[in-house]
């Protein structure tokens, strides 16, 4: 089917990022939504509740649960019973779910959950960074990060497509930066429900809880077989590398929008300096790249969309011609003094034939603003690495010495 995507632009509406995501969830025809309100995720679940109240999501039950722990636990049951299942949370709520996240992934239940990224307590802080989702790195969930509100909405449909792929059958965290994306009003194209139906067929799992065909879910595995369950989860992650790319390509074919698959690049072809990042900060970096390119600085940006599975090969291919790599992280592994994107990129390049210096900056913790001037200063540091090598491998950005 050929569509005139230009027509879509006429249909753009100015809505809040949360509304765009909630509307996308609706278009994906979930059967069970289970959530607990928490800032800055609240607007998504409020919008979904209103859709339910207005009868706009047929064949769907919305559970107002008593905690995030039960929000995600209810989806263990609903997904195992064959229902397309959705939740949204952030920060403390995501941390509270931690135990269940392993369980959902281990049981191979294709739940999709939006994470509206927020800092974690203490000190308590409701503003954006990505420590919450990064801390779920090893739970076995696919983890995708959106750059803007349109991508966050579109990523919701892609997330279900990826999760429910029979070769994958893994849950997906679809991450969007708190406030920066969740509370901003921007023109977006809301997802057309008929097109989504074409993109995302009904969820028909091979196995489900069914009295006519009784199966046991959640059996215990002793040392004889536990290893193989873990191995198969990793195999599914490997397969997801392609599925994520395919989901992005198929989405482009139907909707005319593309944000990259595992990664996306901007001005990296001939770049000496490549900045890597995830989420909304990528938009700021693109502006910095434009400004510096005009000044003759050969700089580009590599957007990492998929943090899990980690696209080591795609990253390696994208950066291999550069002279220095800078990883920007809205998170930190305390005790290592590195952000996750930095650590993992560095680690995945070791033992390869790509030997490029890489430095890391931890940035934007707890919603600290990231002005273009900060980014330019970081590029200046990167230039020094090209000239004289690494002096500081990984560091905090914009520290206020007077507060220390």
């Amino acid at each position, binding site marked *: 089917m050929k569509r005139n995507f230009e027509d879509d632009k006429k249909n753009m509406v100015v809505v809040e990022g949360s509304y765009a995501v909630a509307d996308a969830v609706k278009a994906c025809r979930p059967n069970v939504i289970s959530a607990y309100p928490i800032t800055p995720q609240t607007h998504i679940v409020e919008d979904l509740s209103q859709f339910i109240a207005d009868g706009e999501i047929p064949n769907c039950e919305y*559970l107002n649960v008593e905690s995030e722990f039960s929000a995600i636990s209810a989806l263990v*049951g*609903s*997904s195992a019973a064959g*229902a397309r299942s959705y939740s949204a949370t952030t920060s403390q709520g995501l941390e509270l779910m931690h135990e269940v996240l392993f*369980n959902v992934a281990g049981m191979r239940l294709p739940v999709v959950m939006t994470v509206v990224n927020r800092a974690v307590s203490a000190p308590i802080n409701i503003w954006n960074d990505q420590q919450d989702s990064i801390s779920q790195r090893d739970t076995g969930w696919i983890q995708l990060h959106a750059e803007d509100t349109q991508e966050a909405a579109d990523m919701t449909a892609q997330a279900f497509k990826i999760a429910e792929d029979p070769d994958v059958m893994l849950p997906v965290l679809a991450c969007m930066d708190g406030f920066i994306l969740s509370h901003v009003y921007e023109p977006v194209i809301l997802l057309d429900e008929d097109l989504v139906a074409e993109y995302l067929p009904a969820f028909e799992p091979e196995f489900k809880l069914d009295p006519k065909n009784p199966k046991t*879910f959640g*059996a*215990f595995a002793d040392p004889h077989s536990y290893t193989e369950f873990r191995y198969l989860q990793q195999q599914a992650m490997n397969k997801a590398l392609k599925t994520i790319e395919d989901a992005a390509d198929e989405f482009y074919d139907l909707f005319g929008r593309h944000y990259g698959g595992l990664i996306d690049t901007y001005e990296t072809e001939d770049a000496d300096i490549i900045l890597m990042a995830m989420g909304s900060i990528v938009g700021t970096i693109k502006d910095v790249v434009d400004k510096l390119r005009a000044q003759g600085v050969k700089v580009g940006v590599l957007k990492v969309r998929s943090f899990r599975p980690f696209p080591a090969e795609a990253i390696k291919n994208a950066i291999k011609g550069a002279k220095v790599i800078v990883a920007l992280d809205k998170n930190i592994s305390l005790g290592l003094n590195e952000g996750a994107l930095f650590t993992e990129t560095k680690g995945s390049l070791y033992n390869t034939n790509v030997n490029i210096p890489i430095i890391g900056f931890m940035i934007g913790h707890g919603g600290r603003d990231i002005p273009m001037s900060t980014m330019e200063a970081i590029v200046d540091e990167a230039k020094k690495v090209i000239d004289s090598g690494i002096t500081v491998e990984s560091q905090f950005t914009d520290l206020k010495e007077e507060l220390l």
Partner: protein
Amino acid sequence: MKPLLQAGHRGCAGCCDAIAAKFTLMAAGEDCIVVSPTGCLEVMTTPYPESSWNVPFIHSLFENNAAVASGIEAALKAKGEFGNTKIIAMGGDGATLDIGMRSISGAFERGHDFTYVCIDNEAYMNTGVQRSGATPFAASTTTSPAGKVSFGNIRPKKNMPAIMVAHGSPYVTTTSIGYPKDMIRKVKKAVDVEGPTYVHAHSPCTTGWGFDTSKTIEVAKLAVETCLWPLYEMEDGELTKAKKIKNPKPVEDYLKMQRRFKHLFTMEGGDEMIKKIQALADANIEKFGLQ
């Protein structure tokens, strides 16, 4: 009809869980889905790749049993597949009264149509007899042991049925695996009543309580006959039935059969503790009109 809980599971001889699960399934029939938390029942019935369940069964975690059950109910309703299927959450006392309390409270408050069966063997048996909120007064467990200056657990059982009544459950009942007809009738009623219903089944554990594997039913009966475990039904918040015990036996008859109360018969001051336990039984007679 094939047994819905297949023989060959790994339960101990005289296991209360197997008995409770068997009675529950006899009542519910094959059109049901069983949800079970981490614990003996799940471990002994589902060692991969084997399963004893001839009904759909799901185990997720220790503390989320009722939440998982509520999700299944929501899924079936959303997809128009609910029909006459019974959703039964079956968990031990630790998973129910302690670590799963939030999840069961939320599921009952939300009013899901399911039945929760608590298999109460009065301690964390799967991990080796540690004290739970359901451990009775003066019982010795591995984390509330009797010792030179202790008679064991110093607190009475948490009154879980009352908590579930307070949630507005239309049907809350106590039962005992020592009374198969009583348990099967009550589970059947519970699954037939619409809304969240609660069955609390007193279930003696041969290894945890310390009695011979042939005595499970005898011990269960004695708990009822001494009035330490009253069998009653609460419908829409009102006490509608309680099993009469014409001539209650002294609590010593029940206590002396069990290793967990042995210290009460050997330690100085143990007789005073037994008097306090007798007082608990007497209070049950009064409260539930057992005579």
